[in-house]
């Protein structure tokens, strides 16, 4: 079982750090699934007390890592599955963020065995106060998940949704949901095929509807026959979710993206998707709640 990867681009390193920081805000532990072509992170805080939703990130190894080598424990296996503290990973990568004060030459990730298995994050940093590069090493302890336990660490599937809308103002959405959290415990996402998204928060005293119009329609199901197309044009779906969960997701996001895709599966779930790069995608599922 071997793994090593190397990043060289400052922008990519900063994005990778932002992903790790996002995960650290959502949950204590994260699952890292290393495949031949892709690297995945899953956070799923199962305790009811914390209100963070299921979030997973898929990273195409070619995008971020010019050097990426993964050898599974056995030749017939496809993955290495590791569990680690998201906080530790985020702290270990924090050095990549300091863009202005010091520049990072490279960052290596290595699976190592020192007393216990760990992912070594080795960053070569040049500080402005001196020309010499220095090496910062953080060993993030990990737990290797044996193949027999993999079924419980399967990568979630993106649920099929009737409607996917692209909302271009993520920052606005974040502060809005943060405020709505105080008004209503549940939040209704109501989307229509005409490119409209209504966010409805209801309390005994008031109903607050926020309308996002002229949104980019990414997907409408069943556009087969002309009659169906007409029906699809009039399609309206809605789903109510836990406001705290939604707020936790939006507050955790550390990425600079401004556009988010919101997929609505009628009264089942809200599927959120953030395209960081073509091969680097962050997903989240907010399950529906009954009102």
């Amino acid at each position, binding site marked *: 079982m071997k793994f090593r990867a190397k990043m060289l681009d400052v922008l990519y390193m900063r994005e990778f750090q932002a992903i790790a920081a996002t995960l650290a805000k959502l949950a204590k532990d994260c699952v890292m699934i290393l495949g031949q072509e892709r690297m995945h992170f899953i956070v799923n805080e199962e305790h009811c007390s914390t209100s963070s939703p299921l979030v997973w990130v898929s990273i195409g190894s070619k995008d971020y890592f010019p050097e990426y080598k993964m050898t599974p424990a056995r030749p017939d296996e496809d993955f290495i599955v590791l569990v680690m503290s998201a906080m530790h990973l985020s702290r270990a990568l924090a050095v990549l963020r300091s863009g202005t004060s010091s520049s990072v030459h490279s960052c290596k990730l290595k699976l190592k065995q020192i007393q216990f298995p760990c992912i070594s994050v080795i960053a070569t940093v040049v500080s402005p106060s001196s020309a010499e590069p220095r090496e*910062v*090493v953080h060993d993030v*302890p990990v737990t290797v998940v044996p193949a027999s336990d993999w079924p419980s660490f399967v990568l979630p599937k993106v649920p099929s949704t009737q409607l996917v809308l692209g909302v271009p103002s993520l920052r606005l959405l974040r502060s809005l949901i943060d405020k709505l959290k105080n008004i209503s415990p549940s939040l209704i996402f109501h989307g229509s095929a005409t490119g409209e998204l209504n966010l409805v928060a209801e309390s005994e005293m008031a109903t607050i509807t926020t309308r996002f119009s002229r949104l980019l329609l990414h997907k409408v199901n069943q556009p087969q026959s002309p009659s169906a197309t007409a029906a699809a044009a009039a399609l309206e779906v809605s789903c109510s979710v836990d406001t705290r969960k939604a707020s936790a997701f939006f507050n955790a996001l550390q990425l600079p993206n401004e556009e988010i895709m919101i997929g609505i599966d009628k009264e089942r779930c809200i599927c959120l998707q953030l395209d960081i790069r073509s091969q680097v995608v962050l997903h989240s599922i907010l399950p529906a709640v009954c009102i």
Partner: protein
Amino acid sequence: MKCTLEGGNARIVAKAIQSLSKVGKELFIEADIHGLRMRSINPTQSAVASICFHRCMFDTFQLPPSGDCCCKIAMKPCLGVFRNMKQVEHCELSIVCNRTKFQVNLRCKLETTKQALIAIVDELNITSDVPTDRSSNIIRGDHKLLMEISNSFNSSEEELTLEATPDSLSAKNYIEGARVNDKFMRSQLKLKPSEFDHYQVAEGAVITFCIKEFRAFLLFAEALNAQLTLEFEDAGSPFFVKIKKHREIECLLILSTLSPDDVSFSEDYRPREISMCNSTNVAQKRKSSGPGQDVQQKRRLAEDTTLSDVDTALFQFREHRPERPSEAPSVQPARLLADGDTVDLVEEEADEEALLLAVSDAMEASQIPPPGSTEVCFYNTEDAPPTLIPSQMEHNDDEEDESIPQSPEREREQRVRTIFSRCFQNTYVPREPSPNSQVYAPNSDTED
């Protein structure tokens, strides 16, 4: 003692106090012909910080006719006084009221003056006789560089290990070879000697020290925009951090390092020597005096201390105060670091709670319901070096003897230390602080 400073220098003194406050909970102030010295020692007595301001930093500098003077004050009120120094244009420090109060006069903009009186807890000082200039390994670097090193470690980290070899320096939060917790993230930083302004390491050395006090000093170095000099010998021998600024300010932080035989400081955090004596006569007096009188006494103390909290004023030590020196000895008898501090330092809250529980337990065990009459003595025997009464004030003969002469006492009435004053009040319910003292049924026996 009386000295005055201009605003800019007063801000530096304020910064010094802020960084010393991160080391210990008491501030030792000493004035001699060279200038003003402020010291602080940490509760585990593993670090002593000393910041010395040269005489030329002061506009006026008056020593008492007797020569040197020193005092110990609580850090908390001090921090309050030296907060918000932006407006200060002139500052005057003096010892007043028959050496019982430390007075701070701050003259701010718009003719505002602030006056603060801080109770002097004791007239003692701490010194160390560790030779500070014989280290073979000397590393000098800018505060920015050392700040970067310190910042690359988690703020909750307790120890830092420096591995110095002639051609590289690595800072780690773990000790090579020692087993760490499986959930512990190990971090290390490797630096080249060329990053430092001066790098003199003859032989390799590995030292482990507490990072908290080091960070406190870094903060002060940053305020001064000065360089730091790290000097050390080997594991187990003291580690020195020095800051020097134009010969006006000299700072020295002495940190004990982990000896090679020990495993770790953090595992070694044993309960410290705590002795609490309650002399019988005072206890009886307390019993005889009604609660009203008690309150009155407290109130008087509270009035006395303008800024300090009541707690501070109640810290009356039973130890005999050494007499003040009649002449000014330029060099104080130096002692080892370990027995330098005679003070029962203010405990951590956890310790206090533990003690409270212990008090209540002891009371239950002794079956004496009125708390005032109980004489509680705690001796935490430990094979640590014995704590001694300070001898540096000893003056009659020049010999540097370790034995402590019986010194005359202050004119003030002797009061017992009342750190846990509540325990000795009539209203005190011994079981109260215990969290597991839930009463499930009312007690039918009133005797108990």
